[in-house]
């Protein structure tokens, strides 16, 4: 007998209230877990509406990026790896996970960044470990022009190191504060003091946080390159970028566009889009999943699932002309033998590109096992979870959280119904119908895919599972016969195209959209379309806008 997580089966949503209510994380994973992206409070926001508060001006909002963010765990580790040439992933366990913003769906928004003593002490632990283990020769020593225990040598070392880690020249008081650490080890070689300096600098607010003053009319060139580096590399600017900023000549459109091209050409840009997609699609939550002997999914399979989709996003963005709509319709994917089993393929070796054109059940990332798994219950697939991620992450619509009471309302539903039949009951409930009209049909195409993303034609009760449905998108009621037609419908929709822009915009700016952004977003949408809907066109439109180089907002 199949068991069904009640909340997933009966997930019933109280859709009353205005369209701009405060958002909160969804509980749409069937057992109370959050959705990967977007808020869930307030009322219904249809596809293409942005899924944000953009329809109403917010007091104090402006057009620039956020003025303050803590580095996310991934940004922190990437930065350590890049600047100090170490494998900082070894320290990942020392830091607690980041929360997802209920307003943007991303983890780099200040509103999601709670302060935890354990995280602060984790930064200290990592700083301690890095300072103790980083190579001296060929590593930390490269910041020292000389190693005499003289003030000149100490100050020179501190200035060069701190200016890299703080992403701008260290001030005199900052340098003096760090130079004093050499006196804590008066009898030891220069190296000992240098390691203490690194130990301290890695805990500095100017390293751990991205701090921009709000009492200036415009950001400094150092702040501009920092914004760009974290957007495209998910990491801090390197010495070359900072040197460029130090020339103070980065403020023309042409120079910035050229710089963006250089950033995108750097190998770190591929890591950057992987990390962006990880947040956007919520794939990082596969880490919360446990191996499942019933489906044969192991920890390694879960890692492969995540990697498959991240590889696909990277490939579409950088190798195949860059039209991001192909994310929804792409016929090729990269698989390992473990993933191949989920596709019904017998593969050997390691990662390999597989052409799935003959199999219409596999189109784009929406049919990737990782996406299907992370947006499913722990044991059972859910058309609600899958419909929600399409609505929130790919169409930028929204619905509020379900009321708690619904969990008990549907315990009498016969278990031998299909998900679609169970959810049809929503139409009989005025409390549930409004929201589920916005969700369920977006999940219908995925009903044949089990919790691990394997395709089946019948469920455990022998019910034939369907993929067809109808949905109003771009203001037009459209029907689809199967997941292939659905993928094309979504991929070619204006709603999805606009959502690609709005998601990256919020990620880049580190804050939710507000009404004041609409003009700029529209301009970016036009540039994105004119640029063949390519990743590079989108990136240049978002980061090349003068607003992205504008005064930071509080």
């Amino acid at each position: 007998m199949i068991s069904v997580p009640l909340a997933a089966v009966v997930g019933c949503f109280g859709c009353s209230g205005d369209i701009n209510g405060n958002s909160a994380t969804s509980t749409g994973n069937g057992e109370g877990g959050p959705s990967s992206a977007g808020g869930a409070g307030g009322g219904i926001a249809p596809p293409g509406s942005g899924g944000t508060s953009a329809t109403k001006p917010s007091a104090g909002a402006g057009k620039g990026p956020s003025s303050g963010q803590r580095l996310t765990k991934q940004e922190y580790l990437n930065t350590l790896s890049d600047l100090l040439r170490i494998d900082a992933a070894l320290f990942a366990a020392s830091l607690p996970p980041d929360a997802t913003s209920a307003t943007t769906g991303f983890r780099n928004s200040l509103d999601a960044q709670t302060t935890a003593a354990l995280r602060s002490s984790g930064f200290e632990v990592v700083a301690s470990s890095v300072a103790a283990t980083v190579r001296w020769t060929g590593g930390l020593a490269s910041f020292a022009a000389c190693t005499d225990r003289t003030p000149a040598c100490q100050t020179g070392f501190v200035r060069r190191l701190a200016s890299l880690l703080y992403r701008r020249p260290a001030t005199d008081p900052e340098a003096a504060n760090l130079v004093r650490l050499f006196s804590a080890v008066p009898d030891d070689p220069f190296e000992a003091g240098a390691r203490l300096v690194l130990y301290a600098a890695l805990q500095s607010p100017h390293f751990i946080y991205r701090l921009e003053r709000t009492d200036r009319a415009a950001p400094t060139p150092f702040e501009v390159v920092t914004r760009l580096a974290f957007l495209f590399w998910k990491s801090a600017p390197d010495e070359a970028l900072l040197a460029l900023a130090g020339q103070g000549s980065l403020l023309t459109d042409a120079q910035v566009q050229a710089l963006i091209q250089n950033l995108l050409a750097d190998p770190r840009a591929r890591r950057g889009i992987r990390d962006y997609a990880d947040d956007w699609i919520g794939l990082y939550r596969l880490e919360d999943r446990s191996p499942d002997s019933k489906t044969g999914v192991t920890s390694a399979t879960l890692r492969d699932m995540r990697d498959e989709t991240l590889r696909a996003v990277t490939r579409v963005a950088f190798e195949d002309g860059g039209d991001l709509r192909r994310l929804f319709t792409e016929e090729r994917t990269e698989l390992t033998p473990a993933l191949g089993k989920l596709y019904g393929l017998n593969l050997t070796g390691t990662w390999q590109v597989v052409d799935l054109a003959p199999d219409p059940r596999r189109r784009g990332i929406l049919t990737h096992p990782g996406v299907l798994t992370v947006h499913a219950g722990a044991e059972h697939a859910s058309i609600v979870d899958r419909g929600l991620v399409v609505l929130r992450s790919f169409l930028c619509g929204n619905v509020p959280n379900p009321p708690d009471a619904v969990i008990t309302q549907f315990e009498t539903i016969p278990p031998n119904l299909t998900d679609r039949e169970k959810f049809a009951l929503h139409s009989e409930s005025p409390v549930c119908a409004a929201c589920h009209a916005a969700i369920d049909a977006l999940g219908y195409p995925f009903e044949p895919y089990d919790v691990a993303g394997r395709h089946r034609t019948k469920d455990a009760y022998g019910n034939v599972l369907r993929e067809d449905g109808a949905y109003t998108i771009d203001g037009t009621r459209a029907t689809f016969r199967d997941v292939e037609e659905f993928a094309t419908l979504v991929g070619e929709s204006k709603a999805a195209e606009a959502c690609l822009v709005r998601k990256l915009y919020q990620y880049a700016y580190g804050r939710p959209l507000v009404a004041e952004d609409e003009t700029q977003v529209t301009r970016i949408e036009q540039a994105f379309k004119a640029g063949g809907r390519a990743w590079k066109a989108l990136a240049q439109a978002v980061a090349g806008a003068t607003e992205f180089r504008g005064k930071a907002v509080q």
Partner: protein
Amino acid sequence: MTRAQRHVSRRRFLRGAGGVAIGLPFLLAKEGDTRAQGNEPPQRLVTLFFGNGLPKVLSEKGFDSPSLAALKPFEAKLTMIRGINVYATGLGNGHTMGSMGFACGMDSTRADTKGGPSLDWVAYKETGAATPLPTLSTGVYGADDSQERMRIVHSWRAVRQPNEPIQDTLLLFNQLFGGRTAGPGGDPAKQAKGRASVLDAVIQEYKTVMSDAGGYSPAIRTVIGEHLEHVREMERRVLAQAMAATTAGGTCPAPEAPPALDVLKEKRVANWDKAWPIMVDLYVLALRCDLVRFGNLMVISGGDRFPFTTPFGSVANVHSDVYHRWPGQNGAILIEAVKWQMAKIAELFAKLDDPSYKEGNGGTLFDNTTLVMGTELGEPASHKRDDMTFWVGGGKFKRGFHDLTKVSDVDLYNTVLRGMGIDAKFGDMRYFKGLLPILA
């Protein structure tokens, strides 16, 4: 004190980690403690959370309830209260809201936070404790809904200021006893001095940001201010550890570092069974050493889904396969799951109540530590949060089984604080009906 004196042998620690009697407190019982020489013990409060709920029927016989048999040996020191309603609300399902209410009693509309400070934090602030760690949270859990932090974190300083649980035994050890290798040389005193200097420099930078009133936004300055407080706490801890390392015949020697067991690396009972005894040992040691007086211990976070094997069968997901189906299919497995959780808690109780370690007033750590224990659901299938059962241990409360009606968790928490001599109003007072009749 020599380095050898500071450490218990690794063999001895691992013996405990393997489940064999560890003989807590390592060297403490032999070396003694200053408080044990006649001083009055400090005020302490530790909350204990066990996840996924407790069906009402399993507690209807009070301490004689078969599922709760592991707690029976501590009956004389426990207060069991039935009939408690948890009213906290805001978002999510019953697991979310029940977890939200635990040790807090306030609503929250955000997934990343409880609605206010937790009981242990308020007690910490009210008592003015100056221990190296303000609070300590740890436990064995799956964090299967990791974005809903109220399910996983039960110690909060304020909204969006979690005292996150430590998920790894070695990290827990390091938090308590240092264990840094940073800085030059291997001499602990020298390392501690280096760390203190570094933290002092770091504090200066945070203070500079905070003092720069015209520059940074209020939102980021709030975050920076909270981070600054954390760094100050670290500095106090380092100084305390340095003092312990340099005091001749130190009063609270550290054990050898335990093996690193991450409870989230393998979300399995077998892993948790290995980690829990180490966590309990370290926690008890921290209380004895007065490294901390407040905090939370957890056995399973709210709504966790993990495989569970019993003589009555095995399930891949105890949450949906067992708790959601209560009292029907797999009921026997649910009872075993509850027994497993109670056994874990009883293990803690036994070590807290170790008669070989008495404090200045002649009581055990159990006697002198207020314990508040509960879960997030009253009925796992319906996810209702009424008529629930909580426990209070230690402190000065009337013992026995109190079968009450329609009282609230906020009533309980305020009663506990009052029993500790703390006259603060706690939780959402809309949910406060009155003090419970358990004050001694």
